[in-house]
C-alpha cells in the first residue's frame, strides 16, 4: 500500500494536467471543486490522455467506472488515492 496525502497527489496531478490546459493561472489555484472541462477548459478529447498519464505517473490502473468519476479535481484525487491504497 502506498500512502500519499491529498496535497501530495494534488501537487503531482497539476503536472499531469498542465500539458492539456492553457489556463495556467487557474491551474495554480485548483481545488477539489475545480471542473476539468468547465473551469480548466480542457478539451474532452484530452480526458483519456489525462487518465493514461495519471496511470503512468502513479503506476496504477484506473478502471472504466473510476475513470467516469474523474470530472473534477477532488474526484481525481479520490480515485488516485483509492488506487494507490490498493497497491
Amino acid at each position: 500500500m502506498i500512502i500519499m496525502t491529498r496535497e501530495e497527489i494534488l501537487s503531482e496531478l497539476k503536472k499531469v494536467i498542465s500539458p492539456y490546459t492553457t489556463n495556467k493561472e487557474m491551474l495554480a489555484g485548483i481545488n477539489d471543486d475545480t471542473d476539468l472541462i468547465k473551469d480548466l477548459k480542457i478539451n474532452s478529447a484530452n480526458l483519456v490522455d489525462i487518465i493514461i498519464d495519471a496511470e503512468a505517473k502513479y503506476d496504477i490502473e484506473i478502471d472504466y467506472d473510476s475513470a467516469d468519476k474523474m470530472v473534477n479535481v477532488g474526484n481525481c484525487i479520490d480515485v488516485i488515492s483509492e488506487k494507490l491504497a490498493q497497491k
Partner: protein
Amino acid sequence: MLSTGNDIVSIAAINVTRTQDPVFYQKILSQTEILQYQQHYSLLIPFANYVWLLWSIKESAYKYLQRFDPELLFSPTKFVVNELVCPVSSLSNPFKRLIVEQIGFDDTTVHAARVTHGDNVLWSRSSFYPDMVHSVVNGIGNFDQVNWGIKTISSTDAESQSEAVRAFLLNKLQVIFNGKQMQIGKSEHGVPIILYRQKKIPLPISFSHHKHFVAYSFIAQ
C-alpha cells in the same frame, strides 16, 4: 423535443502513436467495436481515424442524452457504435473552407451509424476530412431538418473558441428568424440555451470546438 448533439475533432491535433496504443483505445472503444474494425473496416479506415470517428459519435451522443439526463457521465465504452456505413466517396481534401453551413447531409460523403447507450438508440452522421471529423447525433434517424455548421478560426484558446462558436450560431439564427436578436445563455445544468427577450425558446442547440474548428447543430422545423 427534437434535439441534436455534435462534436468535432481536429485530426491534425491527435497523437496517432498514442491512439494506436491499446492502453489508450481500450478506454474509448468497446471490445465489440474493436472486433468490428478488424472484421469490416480495417481496409476502409486507418485505425486511428476509426478511434476518433467513434469518439466524435460517442461524444455527440453523450451531449444529446445529457440534455435529458443532466447527471449522465461520459463513459465512452458504454456508448456502442454499430451498423457503421462508410461513404461511397470519401472527403479526400482537407477542410480548407472558412465556413460550411448546411441543412441535412449528403449521404454519399458521410459515415452513418447507430449508437446505443443502455436502452437509448440514436443515429449519427459524420463528415470525415483528412484533418477533421465532425459528427451529429439525433434520436429520430432522419437528418433532413438538421442545421449544422463548421467554421475555421485563427485562435485556439478556449475563450476565442467559445466566443466564435456563439457568434457563428447567432448569425445563423438571425437569418432564420428574420433578424431577431437572440442571445445564448446556459441552463442550470450548464447546457447552452437560446434566449429571446430574456426568455428561453425551445430550440435545443449543441456546440463543439477543437483547436482551429468550431461547430454547431440544431433542428429547425
